[in-house]
């Protein structure tokens, strides 16, 4: 095998490390994307029996966004196995306890329940804030595109922009300014 071919072979089967910023992202939508990278579904050489999955590092998992009233409507079920051991935890309660769990459970549930799933989950790193350990961060070579655009707050937009931005509504003629 020539040197160039050998390098191509290494590059094909090497694990790539991806980073994903969860800020203002829906965890249930982004789980479908993260899953593809974790399982290696984005690769042309994908086969369920070869080990071609990548590593995904999720940051800012504390700042995920849920739709509408899902923070208080979505419940996570757990049963201890004993009689009366069932418990339902609401999404906001779970997020208070551990801000990485919602995204972790979303990715876990997006995959089919087979023997491979727990090993695939080992390749997912989730961090609640921006800080990532150096030994993890030094491997990252790719960024996964966010699904939803991160909204800008009005008080963070400079005043010149708000003043010169095209206007839609004009005041009626005898309106008293306040």
């Amino acid at each position, binding site marked *: 095998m020539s040197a160039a071919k050998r390098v191509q072979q290494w590059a094909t089967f090497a694990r790539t490390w991806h980073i994903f910023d969860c800020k203002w992202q829906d965890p249930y939508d982004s789980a479908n994307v993260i899953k593809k990278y974790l399982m290696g579904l984005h690769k042309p050489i994908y086969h369920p029996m070869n080990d071609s999955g990548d590593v995904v590092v999720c940051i800012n998992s504390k700042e995920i966004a849920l739709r509408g009233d899902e923070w208080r409507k979505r419940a996570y079920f757990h049963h201890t196995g004993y009689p009366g051991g069932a418990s339902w935890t609401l999404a906001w309660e779970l997020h208070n306890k551990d801000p990485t769990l919602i995204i972790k459970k979303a990715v876990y549930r997006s995959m089919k329940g087979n023997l491979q799933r727990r090993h695939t989950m080992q390749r997912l790193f989730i961090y609640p804030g921006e800080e990532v350990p150096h030994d993890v961060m030094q491997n990252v070579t790719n960024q996964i595109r966010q699904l939803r655009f991160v909204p800008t707050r009005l008080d963070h*937009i400079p005043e010149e922009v708000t003043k010169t931005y095209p206007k839609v509504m004009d005041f009626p*003629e005898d309106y008293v*300014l306040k």
Partner: protein
Amino acid sequence: MAGLVRVGFSLTRNAIFSTSIRSIATTAQLNLKAIREQTEGSTLIIDGVTVPSPRTELLIRAEPPVQDTALSTSEKPPCYMCALGLDVKHTDVLILSQFVRTDGCMLPRRITGLCRRQQKKMGKLVAMAQKAGLMMNLTPANCKKDPTKRRDYKKFNTYFDERTIFMKKIPKPVDRFKR
């Protein structure tokens, strides 16, 4: 002292103007007005000053449609937001802030000049933006403006689906992973 003067001023004004002959003007009372208060010694002068609107130059309107003879006379022209046909999201704070007073309340329809449907839509979008904490400087004072300082489920980031605005019943989100 200033308060006393103001009370006296309002009393005399009411005594003079609350009769049946009131505000008859031969010319239109036009233009935007700003109320100015000045104190000169012991007298308080309050006057409404006509001010040019700062928005008129930046105003954007849809081009008027080509006039058809029969249809255009019977039908009402669409309001300016319907005519523009913009897809406004609740994250477009620069547009939504134009429909809001400085204290964060929605302007009424007689001032915004929208049609009923658009007024309802804009009101809901403004509420969405305020709940998501995107218009913190334009939110009523009795609200918790900063989401991080709210309690329980209100303190986390929330986004909204604009399609739900005119839905009679909001369907449950389909959970494909549910077993």
